[in-house]
């Protein structure tokens, strides 16, 4: 067996110092080593987007990166969204309100792609959403409600920012 590789990686704010087999994909590390099974694996060839997580602020297919490549990196998964008391993140609330999911298989990837987009472009237009999320497949919703959800999430997050600025708790 080849030598294991040391990976110091921050996942959802927690630091880990791990020895992994070189062939461990980021998705394997998350789901297996760290028991964070919220990240879903569909195609394992970059096509479906279900496995999308945020690596160093960039939406990334966790099925197409080896954990060994990410020594020193910081990763956020769908588990980072809801607060410890279960309060949903605005993006999660928007997907619930706007029926942006049915079976939910694609949802972790959709949510993380949406978060990354909204961090870059707080008020995305339809084109921005299609460009950032057009590579995420959904077999259920027909996509229209997902686009609506992302728009609604942008509004919820803008409200939250403005109420935080005026000192009011949302």
């Amino acid at each position, binding site marked *: *067996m*080849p*030598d294991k*590789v040391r990976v110091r990686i921050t996942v959802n704010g927690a630091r880990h110092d791990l020895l992994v*087999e*070189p*062939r*461990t*994909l980021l998705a*394997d590390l998350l789901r*297996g080593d760290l028991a964070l099974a919220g990240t879903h694996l569909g195609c*394992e*060839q*970059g096509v479906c*987007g279900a496995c*999308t997580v945020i690596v160093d602020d*960039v*939406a*990334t*297919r966790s*099925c*197409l*990166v*080896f954990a*060994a*490549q990410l*020594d020193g990196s910081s990763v956020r998964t769908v588990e980072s969204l809801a607060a410890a008391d279960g309060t949903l993140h605005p993006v999660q609330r928007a997907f619930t309100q706007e029926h942006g999911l049915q079976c939910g298989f694609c949802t972790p990837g959709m949510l993380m*792609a949406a978060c990354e987009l909204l961090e870059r472009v707080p008020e995305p237009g339809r084109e921005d959403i*299609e*460009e*950032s999320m*057009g*590579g995420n497949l959904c077999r259920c919703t027909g996509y229209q409600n997902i686009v609506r959800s992302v728009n609604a999430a942008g509004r919820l997050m803008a409200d939250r920012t403005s109420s935080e600025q005026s000192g009011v708790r949302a």
Partner: protein
Amino acid sequence: MKPAPFEYAGPRELDEALDLLAEHGDDARVLAGGQSLVRLMNARQVSPAVVVDINRVPGLDTLGLFGDNGSSTLRLGATVRQRTSELSDEVAAHAPLLAEAGAQVAHAPVRARGTVVGSVAFADPSAELPAALLALDGLVKVRSRAAERTVAADDFFTGPFRTSLAPDEMVVAVDVPVATGRTGSAFVELTRRHGDLPVCGAAAVVGVGDDGRVSHVRVALCGADERPVRVPAVEAAVLGADDPAAFTEAAAVAADGTSPIPSCHGSADFRRHLARVLTARALRTAFARATSPKETTDA
């Protein structure tokens, strides 16, 4: 965990990477963006014994102008992401074809990791960027432990997923001469779905002289042959033209002598048809961009 076991190397110097390639040759694979390699490894279509991750090698992420007067060539190093290139002001100003072709590769999250050079080295006959590099008269900068050489894009692509790279060599950068004078370019393609590899695509670069006639032209195709190809017959027919109608006529020979690889996405005949239609479209758009004052890139 799908890939077969392998040894991971993350060299921090170019020489270290080249030593590994010299030592392991065919058993080693360079890992750039991984957006093709890891997919193939997941499916065990490729099972290298050693993976050489070049992402920590300093200097390979250069993106900028250099040359005699400091500005004649645009260089993209081996770890420049497709997304970075597509959004770069320098690429937009000096090699807009690369940006236009790059924006049609896959989806944004794939382009955020995938590299321009990785796409060139992978040499998928349907891929956009190798065809764009051909139309731009690009150069491929190659290094091994023993030597350094520069290969014209025309000589680099030798077949489907095959290049003139030796097992101990890697690509360190691609160089593109910057657009000068009244030049326009265009990349057009047909895909089954947004973000898919094209069934066929055409890249055109058109330079227009003071007399309003085409003084320089390059046409390259992807998905139309076993490798990305230039189309000299069309280029010859277009030279000297000053009327867009001439482009459609010239494009009629775009598929002559090609051997398209048929697949479920398009038969050989359909690909030949697309080669003609897309070549005409790319030429007309490139000419319009070269001649419309707004779009002119006067250097």
